[in-house]
């Protein structure tokens, strides 16, 4: 990989204060390099989702700056957030369609993305005909098809059952290893954060601040059994301890 001095995402002294006076985020410093996968864990209501909305440009900070390199940002929502009247293929094509991409090109890219998430043969199905896990795969494919340099995830697997969730984590980090993007992943599951990431950040309860940071040194792609490795358990334990400390 080419060493780059630039960052895919940089937050400097970011603060978010809501009109009612609540401070959601306070002095957040964060930098994500290309090829870096960073997870943020924190208690409910600590401003994790706000952090993501600021990073994507959906919201503006009340202080500090948010800088993203390039404008190809992929965003995966908590729910699959699909258009129920569109087929899988048409849903995946949507971002390129809105960007005005050529029809043949966007169809080819959509088919590539659908193949990458393992949904070949389901192109013509409507979202209502799919399971929760499959809908989330469509959502992933839709974000992937823009070939984002920065990928933002807002607790995407939170609504899935445990088995599906673990399989989706394995799929996601395989895709990450294959395509190589910068990822920012919001979750409240410590094992999910450690399994996916090269770095885990722990946020405190409101006002949200980053209170601890852990390196996860295992190389990608990671086997599913890594979750039962003692070294993995040790890091997960440290993150959990920091999380308990930060939420008090």
């Amino acid at each position, binding site marked *: 990989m080419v060493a780059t001095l630039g960052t895919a995402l940089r937050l400097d002294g970011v603060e978010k204060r809501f009109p009612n006076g609540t401070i959601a985020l306070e002095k957040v410093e964060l930098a994500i390099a290309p090829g870096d996968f960073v997870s943020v864990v924190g208690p409910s209501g600590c401003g994790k989702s706000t952090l993501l909305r600021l990073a*994507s*440009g959906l919201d503006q900070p009340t202080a500090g700056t948010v800088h993203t390199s390039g404008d190809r940002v992929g965003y995966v*929502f908590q*729910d699959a957030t699909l*258009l129920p*009247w569109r087929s899988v293929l048409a849903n995946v094509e*949507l971002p390129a369609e*809105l960007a005005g991409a050529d029809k043949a090109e966007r169809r080819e890219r959509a088919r590539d993305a659908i193949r990458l998430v393992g949904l070949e043969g389901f192109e013509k199905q*409507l979202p*209502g005909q799919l399971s929760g896990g499959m809908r989330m795969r469509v959502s992933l494919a839709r974000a992937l098809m823009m070939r984002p340099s920065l990928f933002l995830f807002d607790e995407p697997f939170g609504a899935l059952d445990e088995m599906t969730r673990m399989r989706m984590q394995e799929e996601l980090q395989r895709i990450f290893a294959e395509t190589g993007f910068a990822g920012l992943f919001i979750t409240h599951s410590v094992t999910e954060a450690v399994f996916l990431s090269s770095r885990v950040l722990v946020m405190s309860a409101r006002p949200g601040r980053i209170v601890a940071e852990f390196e996860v040194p295992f190389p990608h792609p990671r086997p599913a059994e890594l979750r039962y490795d003692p070294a993995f358990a040790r890091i997960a334990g440290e993150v959990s301890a920091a999380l308990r400390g930060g939420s008090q």
Partner: protein
Amino acid sequence: MSTDTTPATDAVTKTAAGTDPGAPTPNLRPDTAHSGRQWAARLAPVASLAVFIGIWYAVSYLLLTPERRFLVPPPHQVLSVAFLDWARLEPMLLALSLTAQVALAGLVIAAVLGITAAALMSRASWLERSLYPYAVVLQTVPILAIVPLIGLWFGFGFTSRVVVCVLIALFPMIANTLFGLQSVDRALHDLFTLQKASRWDRLRKLEMPAALPSVFTGLRTSSGLSVIGAIVGDMFFKQGSPGIGTLLDVYRSRLQSEELFASIILASLFGIAVFAVFTLIGRLAVGSWHASASAGER
């Protein structure tokens, strides 16, 4: 007039629900049990129709003396005098087709105006704040109170009949479309914002398709109202060819009770047909994704 169509529309929905083929039966011989139940469900409205006709006969022959029988002529007399005599049926059918044209014209205009108005209101909240209260007022003004004014402005013929339909059918179109446009999932809006979608794309590819089920709910309500409006219009604006409402009034004044009953039945059947057609169109247009989507998401 509304009391004529309401029980009829109920019968339509009940039949549709009763013949639902998806109902599972925990029986050893599910095929026969299932079809048996289906038949029972289909026969139920037929049976109640038979009871209704029985009561009709009872009123005609037991309650009314022969000289007062014109108030409720027995069913077979309505059938033979009004329905089986082409010379009497033909003017009724011609009148009904004219009323249908009025109702359809009014509905189309109300739909175009209503959807456009709702789309504009959803674009700009100042428009909604300044216009929506008057849309509600439009709904609460008794239509009969402004009918004389409509006659003065638009004459006493076809145009005024259509105007009555538009006035009566407009509000459900505006209200339902606006509700549909405004209840789009916030995350879906975020998705379009992230892709820097144009306002036009957002309306065309997100809000309008999402609002479609509500638009069809509005169309179904408005189609029924438009039929009522057309019949009311017929009664007040009698210039030009007569509509079914005009004939109703003529038959009443001449005490032609068989024709009066027949035209009431025809008008009701027309109301049922309109309701059924719009229910079907709505189901064809949105049924495939709407039912599955509401069952699947969350």
